Structures are given as structure tokens and as C-alpha cells.
């Protein structure tokens, strides 16, 4: 499988880490999670929050030449989800639609994230990837 270069780099990097380093990396990603740009905030306010225990994840994307740039909004009360989503945002931003939709759902296996976060989180992470692909397709058609 070929991943976008930046995503591959992140995967390789995290794969080589100890459990503690993985957690620290996720925290660093969560803490550097960017605010949603102002221009998306109106659209954001129209979205329904996902009820109950699920963290509301809001995904926007825009074209930048041949590439796609994602903007995500996730509450700071959910640092794990922020950290994981940040991996995707950092790894995929600027990639083409073809590159994005070719990322296999099991690309995360080498990172061995399950030693640091619960399977429930990893499933959520895969859900975010699937959702990002849908948004990328929608803005490209």
C-alpha cells in the first residue's frame, strides 16, 4: 500500500515509539489542534451534535489546487479524539482525492495504537477517516 508521504512518515514515527511516547505524542497533537477557521463557524453552528457519549466531530474540506485541505472541529474536552484526528489532518492535508480515498482502513495497524488507547477510540478514528473520505469526494464532485 502507498500512503501519502506525510501520513507514512507519521505512521513510521509512531510505530517506533514506546507506549509512553505514544501517549505523549497524542497529547502534543491534541494540544496543537488548530481552531476552526472563522469562515467555517457559521456552517459549524448549523450542524447537529452527536448525542450521548460520542464526541461531536465536525469535518470540513476545501480544495487547494490539486490537493484537499481538511478543517476539523472537536471539543477540547476530548483530547484523545483530537490527537487521533490530528494525525489524519496532518498526514492527509494537501493530498489529492485519489491519494485520500486510497488510504486503507487498516493503515494504522503498524502504529500499534491499541497499547495506548482503547479499541473504541481506534474505531472512532477509522470512523473519522471514513467521514473525511466522504467529505473529500463530496467537495470534488
Amino acid at each position, binding site marked *: 500500500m502507498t500512503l501519502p508521504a506525510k501520513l507514512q512518515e507519521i505512521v513510521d514515527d509512531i510505530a517506533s515509539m514506546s507506549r509512553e511516547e505514544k501517549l505523549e505524542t497524542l*497529547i502534543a497533537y*491534541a494540544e496543537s489542534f488548530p481552531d476552526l477557521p472563522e469562515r467555517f463557524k457559521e456552517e459549524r453552528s448549523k450542524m447537529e451534535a452527536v448525542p*450521548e*457519549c460520542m464526541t461531536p466531530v465536525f469535518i470540513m474540506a476545501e480544495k487547494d489546487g490539486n490537493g484537499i485541505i481538511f478543517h476539523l472541529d472537536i471539543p477540547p*474536552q476530548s*483530547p484523545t479524539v483530537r*490527537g487521533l484526528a490530528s494525525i489524519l489532518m496532518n498526514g492527509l492535508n494537501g493530498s489529492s482525492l485519489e491519494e485520500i480515498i486510497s488510504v486503507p482502513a487498516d493503515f494504522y495497524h503498524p502504529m500499534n495504537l491499541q497499547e495506548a488507547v482503547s479499541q473504541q477510540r481506534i474505531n472512532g478514528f477509522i470512523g473519522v477517516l471514513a467521514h473525511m473520505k466522504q467529505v473529500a469526494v463530496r467537495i470534488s464532485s
Partner: protein
Amino acid sequence: MSYAHPEFLVDTEWVANHLKDANVRIIESDEDSLLYAIGHIEGAVQVDWFSTLQHPLRRDFLTKEQFEEVASTLGITNDTTVVFYGDKSNWFAAYALWLFQYYGHNNVKIMNGGRIKWEQEKRPLVKEVPSYAKTTYSAKEADKSIRAFRDDIFKQLEEKKPLVDVRSPKEYSGELTHMPNYPQEGATRAGHIPTAVSIPWAQAVNEADATFKTPEELRALYEGKNIKADGEIIAYCRIGERSSLTWFVLKYLLGYEKVKNYDGSWTEWGNLVDAPIEK
């Protein structure tokens, strides 16, 4: 009217005044376990339902010996007052408290409002992780009177005793086994246990600051659905965390004596062969 056992609840001010109290251990227990690293109450230690409280192999939580080891590492003695707080209206704080009760640590409290209220009041959070000297801790035999297993549910059905489903309305009605795009902890069948009444857990807390509703409001909520003080009640949700909050409310805030939490919950029942389901 006051809560039946107000000693199981403290407010944020009480916690702020007991940060240096050697007889008190404050424990953060979150749904999102990275929150502790980002900032926690000074002196608080962390338990994580996934990496600290679960059995590493089986679908179960810690054994008595493993629990003793955790308590000892957190610097808790058999006499320590343990105060729990957490995110999401204290779900996982209630879960941790339930587990401590299960192994006989009765001197436990919840900080009313949890992280949400503490942050709203702009009280300080720190990053320093404290370390406490290891203690010798001896747990009691598991208190099965607060935990239901699947066989207890079949018995409950046979004896026509009350079940409370605390999940969201759509999980109860069977429209969802999980939320769209979030195939977490799925079950192969959707719906609820026959005869269970639906009282979503969140109705027991105030949305604004995550504190518990008043005794009058709580009584009206549960009695209105025929969940009464003299009943032998079992609460369940999806994995047993939201229902530990309901268990806490019924047992300590309303004073119901016979309440169990079914931690197998829907992820067990909805996958169990030959178990009756209603939609």
C-alpha cells in the same frame, strides 16, 4: 427533602479545601483519559477504566488482588477518603466508585459537577503528576449485591422485577446499536431487554453544570417510571459506565437499598444467543 446519603457527595469547594488533606485521595476517572495529562486537580491521581480498571485479558474488571495493587500504588489505605471526579457528568467517576465499593472501600464520594463544574468555576488545573508512598491495602471479598451478571437478568425477567435501561432513546428503541460512523462496542442485535423501562442517565443531571438534580426531581423521575425504593432494581447501558451513574443516584442519592449495575450491559445482551429482546 435532602439526598438519602449526602455523605457520598462533596462539592467543588470541599475538594478545593482538602487538596492537602493526607486522609483524602482525589481520583480523576475520565471517559477521555488524556484529559488528566492536559490538566487535573492538584494532587489528584488518575485511574483509567480501560488501562487501569479492566482485567488485561478477560472481559472483566480487576481481580481483588489486582485491585489491592492499584489502591496501594495510588497511596490509598483502607481508611482513606476517596473522592472521584471526571468528565462527562462523572460517568466514569461513578464507574470507578462502583468498583471501589465492589471491593469494599465504602469511604467514597463523588465531586458534584465533576470536571465540568470545576472548569466553569475557573479553578486551577495542574500538570504535575503526584506520587504517593505505596501502602498496604487489603480489599474485601467482592460485594456481589451491587453487580448483576447475565443470569441475574434472566432471573429478574422470570420474577418480573424492574430493569432500567439508561441508554439514549434511539439505542433503547433499537434504531441504533451504535452511533452512525462510530461502530464502537457494537452488538449484533438492537433493542432492549424486555420489560426494561427507559430512563436515560442524563436526566439525572443538570445539563448546565453536570451536578445532580434535586432529590425531588430525582424522585419524580424514577418513581414516575415505577422505579421505587422497595424494588430490586438492575440498571444497564452499553458497557456499564452510564448505568453506574444511575446506580449511584438510586443507591446513594435516593437511598434505594437493592440496586445492581449490569456491567455486561447491551454489548453482552445484544450478542447473547437465545436472549429475549424487545424493540
